């Protein structure tokens, strides 16, 4: 799975806001707000990846978090992105 549109990630007010770029802004005019963990997952979704790919990468970079915690975080975040209609 991957993101449907080209996004920039912008740090504003201690949050990260994803906005579609250029012509994609006409297609998706919303803003997606997330924290740094969400931004990590979001960046990965710029390429075609599976949930397992994301969980594996996070297991290496998020030392101290269990596989269950990471899987839950990834599931929740991807569900919210799917609900926003930005995942294909």
């Amino acid at each position, binding site marked *: 799975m991957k993101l449907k549109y080209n996004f920039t990630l*912008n740090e*504003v*007010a201690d949050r990260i*806001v994803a*906005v579609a*770029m250029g012509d994609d802004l006409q297609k998706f*005019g919303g803003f997606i707000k997330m924290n740094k963990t969400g931004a990590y997952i979001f960046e990965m979704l710029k390429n075609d990846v599976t949930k397992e790919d994301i969980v594996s990468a996070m297991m290496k970079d998020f030392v101290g978090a269990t596989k269950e915690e990471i899987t839950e975080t990834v599931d929740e975040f991807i569900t919210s992105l799917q609900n926003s209609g930005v995942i294909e």
Partner: protein
Amino acid sequence: MVYSIAGFNFEYEPIFGFATRELAPYASSEKADLKIEVTIPDMKAEFASNPEVKSQEVAELNAIYRKLSEYIPLKDAFVLHAATIDVDGIGVAFTAHSGTGKSTHMLLWQKLLGDRLTIVNGDKPFVRFLEKDKSLLAYGTPWNGKERFSNNISTELKHLCFIARSEKNFVEKLDKQTMLNVILNQVYIPKSPEALVKTFSLLDNLLSSCSLWKINCNMEIDAAKVAYETIFGGNNNEA
């Protein structure tokens, strides 16, 4: 013809009388930094993007706005959809969801404060960050809403307020994240990726530099009194 809006000097030849009149307060003898041209495709794009645009005259003025809005972020400025006033030299911006009554509230402040208040812009001021003294200035522009409230002046923005309708009048401080949620829809988002990134950086600056307030209010004069006294009086009414 050279015009200067928010310190941006541009050369433009108006096509219709409407643009000529609306731009007139901004005529300038300064040297232009850029040249703007509005073409038929530009005006067609305005008709296509906004059903409220019903005449070529309005489409022309909107097209100029579009071109400037895309340009200014590269020069540390952006468009904020907020009714903006100057009170005793201090800038206050009122933002709200459409139809809430930013202009109504602004006019109540005017009724309350008389000459101490000057309207900067009733609709779309340009907000510019000046590096030299790290200040954020809001400027009058010809894009000033249905009632056409604006003046060719600037004010240093110190207070950013979100207005919500309420039976009782009270004012709360807002945290940055809550204000971010409401203000995102009130900022012009440019198409160019570079200008878009700059706009968010300026927005972050706005949220850090201003005191942030939520004004819960009705349409009585007391609404302005409570809001003014809380914001200027140093009374932090926390809900």
